[in-house]
């Protein structure tokens, strides 16, 4: 859908430009924002995020965006959280035990090493996605680029859309509650298929 405006939360952590680049390739007018009013009025909002859970939550607090994001997602408006932007939708993460997340989705993030596999962490690279739910009818992404050390544990099956296998363990890749979606992978770094996935998801929930 050409020239539709998508707002991307600019909390200043990491390569936020990559998300606007990927959206621009699909014809969106992607705008970075750190204005709470603009954010509240967005018809679709994307929260990117790299680094650590505590860092992203405090950047959101410092930018004065906590309340607007919380209200936005609890009103079930179209939202996509990417990587740590997905993690903060949950109750919390052992990466920053004293920092609560937005708590919209039940579950907590634990370190991948707690699974007791021989793999090194972070888990970096291209993983094949397995779809558990048909809720996303438009576009199933085959493989996506991941880089993360924490994973969503004790997740409700109803919230899970896709996952990948890591030494035999099912790691949540895409979760959703209503129109609020979160992806652990980086669609903006997953080739043209990743950009197509974002486009299809925006059209589906927006």
């Amino acid at each position, binding site marked *: 859908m050409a020239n539709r405006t998508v707002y991307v939360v600019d909390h200043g*952590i*990491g*390569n936020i*430009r*990559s998300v606007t*680049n*990927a959206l*621009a*390739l699909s014809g969106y007018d992607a705008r970075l924002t750190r204005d709470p009013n603009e954010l509240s009025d967005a018809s679709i909002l994307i929260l990117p995020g*790299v*680094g*650590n859970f505590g*860092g992203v939550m405090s950047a959101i607090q410092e930018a004065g965006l906590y309340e607007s994001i919380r209200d936005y997602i609890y009103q079930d408006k179209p939202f996509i959280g990417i990587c*740590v932007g997905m993690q903060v939708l949950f109750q919390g993460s052992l990466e920053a035990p004293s920092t609560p997340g937005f708590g919209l989705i039940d579950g907590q993030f634990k370190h991948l090493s707690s699974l007791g596999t021989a793999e*090194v*962490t*972070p888990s*970096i*690279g*291209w993983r094949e996605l397995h779809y558990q739910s048909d809720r996303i009818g438009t576009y199933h992404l085959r493989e996506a*680029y991941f*880089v*993360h*050390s924490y994973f969503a544990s004790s997740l409700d099956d109803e919230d899970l859309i896709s996952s990948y296998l890591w030494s035999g363990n099912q790691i949540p890749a895409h979760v959703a509650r209503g129109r609020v979606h979160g992806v652990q992978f*980086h669609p*903006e*770094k*997953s*080739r*043209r298929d*990743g*950009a197509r996935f974002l486009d299809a998801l925006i059209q589906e929930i927006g």
Partner: protein
Amino acid sequence: MKRLIARLDVKSNFLIKGVRFEGLRKIGDPAIAAQKYYIEGIDEIFLVDNVASLFGRNHLGTLLERVARDVLVPLTVAGGIRTIRDAENLFGLGADKLAVNTASFSNPNLISEIANKFGSQAIVGSIQAQRLAGGWECLVEQGRDRTGVPLVDRIHQLVEFGAGELLVTSVDNDGVMGGYDLQLAEVAAASSSVPVVIGGGCGGIDDALRVMKIEKLSGLAMGSALHFGHIDISELKTKSLEQENLLNEGNRG
């Protein structure tokens, strides 16, 4: 499946390549090369500003912005990154990760500063390893200066600083296209608690397949083999998948 990384050495907007980090010659346009490897299916792009660390500056800005606009795979940038300000600039222009070697010897806090602000996943500890009797020594300034620091000590140090992955390049094999230093890849991967990418020496598909047998290795960087047309990325991907399946069957049998 191991990550395939295209290494593009850049000097004043030209794609260049040397042998053992020396005798650099111009071979093309880095933006066109990046786009080509991306379309052919490369997993990541690694851009190195080759003279930056000598002069303490990074010229990649315009190129990086151009590449980041159309190349939707992770971009790592190296060369001349000395301060957290340099890091902020490069992330702002579209870098996903930065690789640091030289500056982290004079400023050991640089890696932890970048990791604290941008996360460990955004910082790659880069090692230029030269073979000595009984092991490898780490070099700086694009393989020009010795440090006296042994490989395994440096690996532990970089992980402790907060590097989320390591790129280990063989100075001896770089640009020679006679194969990776397999022992180096093996030792580095076994010594590291974070993912290791090996670089230096790939001359063709067989070299790539050989190093991929090292189970703990996370990825392989390729320069000359791609630039001189010795590797077809989709053919390498097909063959590496076949090899992986065979190895898995072997393990089960």
